């Protein structure tokens, strides 16, 4: 298990309890904070219906129990209901993670009949202006309609709002919106700086004062609302002095399958050099989870360097995030530089410092997640 160093335990990790099926990178939205890879345009051949069903069967046999249907926009797949039906029959708890676009009366009913357990609808903001700006679409009114549809069909509903400098000051209105839509849960998820969000970091990273204000308002609403709406406030790790326990440890409980069948320990790991990630078209889930070098690369503690190697907190945070370590220090085995103890912490604190200025000139324009932009990144590789 997590933090253990004994060879016998390291060779038999627990089951991949959480399976995230990124069905497609196609998406009608163009969110500037999207966590999909910049070069998603090079991913062409999506797994077929039958290939996904095999993935679900094999993962379930290993003990996977939570299944997220994600993307891109999973509603872009015409076979979504068939996939949900298969997963439901296997005993998965089925979560749909959607922008809401494509979810109409007919399909929502079809998914209910297939056994879908829960729907998470994303909003970019509580106002039409910012929602539509951040997603570079006109989707706000549609999302409101979809959220009402979700509740009227008896689904538990999570509203997810990714917070950034551009919307975090609307926190009270965002919570009001979740209450008005009768959401069961509200995820106030500060942007994590991967993919497109990393590219746009100087536009998106809020100031400390903004974050403190948002937390204060959220706590006040918690006291007021009681158990009526469960709220999760995901603290931005750039403002923590210790790293997040990313994925609860590499290859510990989380398995991500990308649209082309690539098996990854997280959504972002595709970027890490020197690792040959296995593909479900060539390997079974059991081989991938138990035998692939990529999935054992950062399991346990043998890979750790100082300051993590001798740190008493390594069993709690596993050294943080490998992708963040790679992006900010050039080596995935370094401590996540969010940590104050990291010799590279300056890479984070400098970005944080820049974010404290009220009016800043950011020279690079905000880049929206669009296919044309992605194609340019593929060309540049």
């Amino acid at each position, binding site marked *: 298990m997590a933090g253990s160093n004994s060879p016998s335990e390291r060779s038999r990790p627990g089951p991949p309890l959480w399976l995230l099926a990124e069905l497609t990178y196609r998406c009608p939205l163009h969110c500037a904070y999207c966590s999909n890879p910049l070069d998603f345009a090079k991913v062409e051949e999506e797994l077929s219906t039958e290939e996904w069903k095999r993935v679900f069967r094999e993962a379930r046999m290993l*003990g996977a*129990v*939570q299944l997220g249907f994600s993307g891109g926009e999973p509603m872009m797949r015409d076979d979504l209901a068939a996939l949900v039906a298969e997963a439901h029959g296997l*005993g998965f*708890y089925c*979560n749909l993670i959607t922008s809401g676009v494509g979810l109409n009366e007919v399909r929502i009913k079809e998914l209910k009949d297939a056994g879908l357990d*829960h729907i*998470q609808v994303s909003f970019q903001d509580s106002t039409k202006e910012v929602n539509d700006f951040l997603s570079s679409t006109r989707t706000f009114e549609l999302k409101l309609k979809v959220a009402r549809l979700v509740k009227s069909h008896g689904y538990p509903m999570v509203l997810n709002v990714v917070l950034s400098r551009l919307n975090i000051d609307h926190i009270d209105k965002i919570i009001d919106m979740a209450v008005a839509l009768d959401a069961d849960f509200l995820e106030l998820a500060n942007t994590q700086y991967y993919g497109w969000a990393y590219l746009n970091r100087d536009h998106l990273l809020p100031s400390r004062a903004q974050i403190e204000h948002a937390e204060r308002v959220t706590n006040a609403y918690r006291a007021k609302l009681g*158990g009526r709406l469960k709220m999760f406030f995901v603290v931005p790790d750039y403002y923590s002095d210790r790293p997040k326990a990313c994925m609860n440890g590499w290859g510990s409980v989380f398995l991500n399958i990308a649209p082309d069948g690539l098996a990854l320990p997280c959504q972002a790991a595709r970027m890490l050099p020197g690792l040959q990630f296995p593909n479900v078209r060539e390997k079974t889930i059991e081989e991938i989870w138990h035998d692939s070098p990529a999935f054992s690369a950062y399991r346990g503690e043998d890979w750790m360097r100082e300051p993590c190697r001798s740190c008493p907190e390594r069993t709690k945070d596993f050294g943080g995030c490998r992708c963040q370590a790679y992006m900010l220090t050039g080596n995935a085995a370094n401590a996540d530089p969010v940590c104050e103890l990291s010799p590279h912490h300056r890479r984070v604190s400098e970005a944080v410092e820049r974010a404290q200025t009220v009016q800043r000139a950011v020279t690079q324009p905000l880049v929206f997640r669009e296919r044309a932009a992605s194609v340019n990144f593929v060309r540049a590789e």
Partner: protein
Amino acid sequence: MAEITPQMQPALRSVYRLQWEDAQQAWVLLYPEGMVRLNGPAAEILKRCDGRTQLSTLVDDLERTFGATGLHNDVHEFLTEAVSRGWIEFAE
């Protein structure tokens, strides 16, 4: 929250699903993007929270099944916690 009385009929809220997991050799409570692994007694209580069974009957059943006595306080304490976590509601 109102006091839990022996006549009340506890029910698992519809957001939650109780399920046996072979791989974990445990009963688990599943909910949107989350899971709680239950210990034996917790699972035995939750399995009986069907919205029709009165708390007093539920306790009798547990005591009979497990050859125990005096379980009322333990069950009451667990249900109080389960209500505060949002797992349980009471049928009218």
